[in-house]
C-alpha cells in the first residue's frame, strides 16, 4: 500500500479509534521521521531530498491531526464522507451558547478584579473539565457508526472549537497579567 493512500491511523500503525494511545503515537512518529527526515538525505540526490521533504511534511501533518482532539474528530468525520464548509457551520444548541457567554463574561471581568490569577485558574479548570467531558463523549460516539451519532460527534467537535478559542483567550489574559508585573 502507498503511504499517500494510507489513512493516518494506518500510517502510524494504530487502530482507527478516537481514543489514541498518545505515547505510542509519539513513538511511532519518531520512528517514521527517523526514516524519512531530510537530514537522512543530506547527501542524496536533489530528487530524493525533495521527496523526503514531502514525505516528512505528510507525516508531520498526520501526526498533528491525530494529536489534536479537534483535528482528529474532524478527520474521522471526513473519513466517513462528511464534508465541512467552514463558512457555514451548523447551528449550535442554545444552552451551550448561553454557557459560552457566561464563561466569556467571567473572563472579561478578570483583568479588573483582585485575585485575577486565582479566578483565572478556576475558570481554566472549569474549561478543562468541559473539554474532558466533550472528548469522552466523542470516544463513545465514534464507536457507533449511525448518522445520529455522527451528527452529534460533529456538534461536539464544533463545541470543542469554541472551548479552544476560549482557552486561548484565557491564556492571553494570563500572559497580559504576568507581563504587567
Amino acid at each position, binding site marked *: 500500500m502507498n503511504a499517500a493512500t494510507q489513512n493516518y491511523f494506518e500510517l502510524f500503525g494504530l487502530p482507527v479509534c478516537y481514543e489514541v494511545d498518545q505515547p505510542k503515537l509519539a513513538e511511532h512518529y519518531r520512528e*517514521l521521521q527517523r526514516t524519512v527526515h531530510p537530514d537522512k538525505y543530506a547527501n542524496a540526490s*536533489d530528487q530524493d531530498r525533495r521527496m523526503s521533504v514531502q514525505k516528512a511534511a505528510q507525516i508531520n501533518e498526520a501526526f498533528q491531526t491525530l494529536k489534536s482532539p479537534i483535528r482528529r474528530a474532524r478527520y474521522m468525520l471526513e473519513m466517513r464522507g462528511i464534508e465541512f464548509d467552514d463558512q457555514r457551520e451548523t447551528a449550535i444548541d442554545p444552552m451551550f451558547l448561553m454557557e459560552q457567554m457566561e464563561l466569556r463574561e467571567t473572563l472579561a471581568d478578570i483583568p479588573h478584579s483582585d485575585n485575577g490569577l486565582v479566578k483565572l485558574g478556576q475558570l481554566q479548570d472549569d474549561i478543562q473539565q468541559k473539554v474532558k467531558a466533550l472528548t469522552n463523549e466523542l470516544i463513545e460516539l465514534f464507536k457507533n457508526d449511525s448518522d445520529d451519532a455522527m451528527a452529534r460527534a460533529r456538534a461536539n467537535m464544533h463545541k470543542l472549537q469554541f472551548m479552544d478559542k476560549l482557552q486561548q483567550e484565557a491564556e492571553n489574559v494570563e500572559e497580559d497579567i504576568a507581563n504587567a508585573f
Partner: protein
Amino acid sequence: MALLQISEPGQSTNPHEHRLAAGIDLGTTNSLVATVKSGLAETLADGQGRHLLPSVVRYLQPGDIVVGETARQAAPKDPLNTISSVKRFMGRGVDDVKHLGGKLPYEFIQTESSVPRIRTAGGDVSPVEVSAEILKTLKQRAESSLGGELTGVVITVPAYFDDAQRQATKDAGKLAGLPVLRLLNEPTAAAVAYGLDQKGEGVIAVYDLGGGTFDISILRLHKGVFEVMATAGDSALGGDDFDQAIAQWIMQQAGISDDASHGQLRQLMHTARDAKEVLSAQDSVDLTAELADGGEWKGSLSREQFHQLVDPLIQKTLIPCRRTLRDAGISAEQVEEVVMVGGSTRVPRVREKVGDFFGREPLVNIDPDKVVAVGAAIQADVLAGNKAEDELLLLDVTPLSLGLETMGGLVEKVIPRNTTIPVARAQEFTTFKDGQTAMSVHVLQGERELVSDCRSLGKFALHGIPPMVAGAARIRVTFQVDADGLLTVTAREETTGVASSIEIKPSYGLTDNEIETMLRDSLTHAEEDVAARMLREQQVEADRVLEALTAALAQDGGLLSNEERTTIDVAMQNLQTARQGNDDRAIKKAIDEADKASADFAARRMDQSIKQALTGHTLEEFEQDLK
C-alpha cells in the same frame, strides 16, 4: 547492467571515507568554527590560538579586506570602513536598518535593489557580502586545520530569524563557497551539545542571549530525538543593547551629546563593553571618557546602577519565555534543565533573573560562547555521513506564522508559528470579481492580523485564470517550509490546472542575478572561474545521483520490472557519459532525465521504508503484549 564506476583521483565517493565537515556559529559579535575530531567536537583556533573571531570586517581598498581582531581594534579610528554587528542587518531593508540603529556609524546607501549597501573604501557592500567575508575566514581556518576541502557545513541562525534573514544567511554561505548542508537554529544546536554531553532525557529550555539576538526554545529529548516544542525570541535584542545602555548613561553623566563623532561613539561602546565585563566580577568599575574639547570625564558605575540599566532589557526577554511555555503547553516547573547560551549570559544578573523565572539554577558548564558551534559541528558530522545512523534527529519548528493577504488588508494564516518542519499546507481562495483572470498572491510572516504589521516576504501573480463568475474559480496556494526553515510557495487554479510557482525571494533579499554577479566579482580575485565552478557543481551532483541510484538498485532492484530497470540503466549510462564531458548543461540535462526515469522507483522505495520502519516495532510490542 550499469557500467563500473571509477572515481576521479582525489574525489573518491567511497561512503566510508571520513568527510570533512564543520559547524559555524555566525554570531553578531563573534563567530566560531568547530569540527568533530576523533569523536570529540571542538572549536578551532587561529594561528595565534584564538577561538573567537570577532565578527568585524574592515574594507581598506577594493580587494584589501581585514577580518577579525585586527579589524575590531581599528573600529574607533576607521568607523566608516569597519563593519561590526552586521548580523543585525541581514535580510533587512533600508527602512528597517534606519529603524534599528538610530545612530548607526555607517553610511548606508539606497540602491535599485531593495538591499541596503554600506559605502566603504573597498566599494559598496551588502550585509550578505560582509558576512561572506567572515565565513571565508572561518572556512580557511577549518581547511588549514583539517588539511582538506570542507564537504559539508552547518551554519547556525537564531531560531527567531524570519525567512528573509535565513535566506540572506544561506546566500552568504553560497557566496563564501561553502557547501551548506543545513541552517540550524542556535538553541537547537546548543541543546545538541548539552544533550549528547549529558545523555539527557526530558524537557529542557535553552535561553540564548547573544550580542544582538535573543532566542528561547523549549525542547523534548527522547532517545536521540530532539523535538522543539516551541520557540520565541527577539531578533533585535542582545548584549549590544546592554552596552548601549551603559554608553548612554556615560554620555548623560559626562554631558556628551548625541551628535558626537563616529569614532567617539565607537570608543564609548568599547568602554561600555569593558565595564559590563568588569562588573561581572566586581562591585563597581571606574570609567573615563574623552570629551570633544580634549578634556576627560571620570566617573564610576556601581553594580546596582548597572542592574537598573539592564533590568528592563532582561525583563523584555522573559515575555517570550512565558509565550514559549504556553505554546509548548507546559508550565515552568515541568522544565527539567535550563541551558544558558551566548556571551551575554555571562552577566550574573541575567543568570539570576532567568533562574528565578524557571525556579532552577541554569546550566552553564559548556562555554556559552562555544556551545552553539560545538552543537553545529556534531550535526554537520552526522549529516556528512560520518556517524552511525539512528543516532541523532532534530525536529525543529517555524518560529513565526506564515500567511497570505486577503481582502481588506488582513492576513490569513496558513502555517501557524511553532509548527514542526518540514511542513506543507494548502489553502483555497477564490476570485472577487466576475471574469477576474489574474490574482496577486502576497506572502507574509508574523503574528499580527493586519498586513501592514507583518513582514512582507514577497508577492507574485497567478495569470491565466479562465473568466468565471466571482467565487467560482478555486485557487489552491501551497506553502512548503523545508528543514532549513525556508519557504516555497506555489499556486494553482484547480479547475484548469494553471500553475505558478515561486521560491520565495524575500522582498529584502538579493536576486539570483545579484548573487551571481557578486560571485563573479569575488572570483575575479580567485584562481577558479565561474564556468569551472558551475561544471564542478554539476559533476558533484551527477556523482551523487549515480551513487544513490547504484546503491538503491543493489538494495531494492526487486521493486522494478525488467522494462523499468532498463529505462533506469539507460538513463544512468547517459549520465555517466555526460559526466565525463565538460558541458555543465548537458550534465544537468542528463541528471534531470535520470531523475525522471527513477522518480517512481524513488517513491516506491520511500513508501517501503515507511512501512518497514514500524514493522519491527509492532512485532516487538506484540511480543511484549503477549508476555
